[in-house]
């Protein structure tokens, strides 16, 4: 990998909680705590974790939809976190987002042509005629009949709406797409259609993805590399073939065994994690996972583990894993 497209460097985002009393100290939820990773050009990077682990906040911070508390995000070598408005606008031409809920992310009062054409209007690209042509092209690319251009979002099904959301992003020909749970609101049969569309588009247009999801099976399918997040931290990063074959972090291992397999002969769940996610406002000392970890020892309470390499491109943050 020469220059990466995106470099996330010690990114943190802390949300302030309401003070519980005038003289009480203000507390913070560390939604993202010291997260670093790279996304190469044309690479698809999967970010996996359960609800509340901070994966969405990472995605939003990269696009500066939320302002990070600390750390840097670099896009093609330039620090995004200090971009002023005009630079930010140009940046967002190249970095776009697809949202989870296709019912909430499309304006019900706009026609399909307006929705898909809006990015072009915002960035003042092309004449009216050129824009129309572009809208038709992207609609055809995602498999929506351009004859529906004057229809409204509610006239489409969930899968079609997600296609429209993808079309809207494609009009600008971005280099990076942050896709936040793009298929989790969809039915299984439609999910495969959208996943395939995303795989095809990435290859056709040489885009990079930050693919955020709770579903390891989907991520393994679409991502080249995967990072597993837990309570604001990345606990393991690996090429996606390795994460399934040789998961090293106990959380990744538990996550993999917890996924129900569509196979009645599959061995039944071996390790079921006990307990709930700790309160992110009062994270455990040391390793964030130690309260639920079947392998935790005293050392895990005392100090937070550092990221160590266990193989090519494979990093784990766990005291119990030997390099």
């Amino acid at each position: 990998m020469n220059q990466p497209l995106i470099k996330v460097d010690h990114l943190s985002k802390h949300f302030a909680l309401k003070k519980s009393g005038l003289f009480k100290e203000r507390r913070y939820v560390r939604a993202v705590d010291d997260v670093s990773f790279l996304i190469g050009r044309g690479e698809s990077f999967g970010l996996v974790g359960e609800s509340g682990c901070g994966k969405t906040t990472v995605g939003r911070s990269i696009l500066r939809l939320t302002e990070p508390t600390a750390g840097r995000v670099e896009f093609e070598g330039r620090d995004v976190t200090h971009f002023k408005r005009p630079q930010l606008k140009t940046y967002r031409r190249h970095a776009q987002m697809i949202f989870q809920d296709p019912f909430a992310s499309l304006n019900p009062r706009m026609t399909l042509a307006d929705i898909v054409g809006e990015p072009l209007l915002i960035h003042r690209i092309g004449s009216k005629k050129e824009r129309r042509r572009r809208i038709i092209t992207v609609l055809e690319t995602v498999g929506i009949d351009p004859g529906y251009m004057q229809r409204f979002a509610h006239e489409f099904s969930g899968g079609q709406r997600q296609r429209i959301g993808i079309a809207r992003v494609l009009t600008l020909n971005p280099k990076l797409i942050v896709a936040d749970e793009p298929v989790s609101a969809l039915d299984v049969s439609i999910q495969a259609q959208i996943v395939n569309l995303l795989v095809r588009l990435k290859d056709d247009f040489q885009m990079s993805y930050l693919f955020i999801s709770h579903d390891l099976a989907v991520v393994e399918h679409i991502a080249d590399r995967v990072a597993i997040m837990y309570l604001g931290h990345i606990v393991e990063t690996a090429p996606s073939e390795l994460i399934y074959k040789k998961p090293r972090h106990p959380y990744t291992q538990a996550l993999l065994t917890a996924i129900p397999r569509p196979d009645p002969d599959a061995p039944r769940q071996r390790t079921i994690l006990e307990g709930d996610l700790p309160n992110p406002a009062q994270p455990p000392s040391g390793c964030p996972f130690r309260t639920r970890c079947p392998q935790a020892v005293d050392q895990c309470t005392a100090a937070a583990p550092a990221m160590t390499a266990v193989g090519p491109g494979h990093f784990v943050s766990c005291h119990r894993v030997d390099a």
Partner: protein
Amino acid sequence: MATPPNRQPILSVENLRTYFHTPDGLAKAVDGVSYHVHPGETLGVVGESGCGKSVAALSILRLIPTPPGEIVSGDIRFNNQNLLNLSTRRLRGIRGRRISMIFQEPMTSLNPVFTIGYQLSRVFSLHNRLSKKAARRRALEMLAACDIPSPERIMTSFPHELSGGMRQRAMIAMALGCRPDVLIADEPTTALDVTIQAQIMALMLRLKEQFGMAMILITHDLGIIAGSAQRVVVMYAGEKVEEAPVAGLFHHAAHPYTAALIQSLPVLGRRETFLKEIKGMVPPPHQDIPGCKFADRCHEAVDACRRRRPQLKEIEPGHLVACIRRTDS
């Protein structure tokens, strides 16, 4: 795995039709569905959103809002009585007591202004005529049975103070407190994270064994079905398209829809360039389709499929399929 033929089903749904009168026309949400469950058995009902799996389950306990909904015809047989003909009063003695139900989103099923303890005890005192004290004791017992840590503290908590997993445990405690004969679980783990989902499924299966209940497990997740059901009913657009023992369904799926659904799943550790997709989408529920409702998405469809509705036929013992490409040759 095969159920002995002489065993009577504890609950059976026969030829159920539940329609909704909508501004777009008559929506046949459930259109002639039959299934049954034996004592101690887990029946999986699987299908995508809008296939009628939840409406069928709600019809069992007559929880369909009328209007716009209407149970047009059918029989719901439980203990030699037809629940559809029962008086509301008698039905109330069955709802929540002999047949219990848990839903996808525990937050909307629990009342936000009462404590967990109050809500649980109230159910038990109403149904089992227990004294306040005894009902409270039962509530504590049930919370503990559902692996809730420090049940005394949870008793005085409000639903919003609990995590999603804990809320679902509280719901299970409430549903099982009267020792029902049948538990209907409608997407019980869909709103939960995978690690919590695994905990809840393990808990439900353990309690089902312990209490010897029958369970109707409704889900869109074939993975959950594979791991917990003995028999499976596959629904599509308001109809049952296939029924089979779980191994038969996954190894020899007969209906093209079932087969395509299983193949469209991304499987861990088996990465392919493209997933097998099912083209198109489910027809709208108010559209009148004379033939097979899956024909337009089916790669095996022939002209005859569009002419008349395929009938369910048994192709193996206990394995039924509604597809003329499989049954008429």
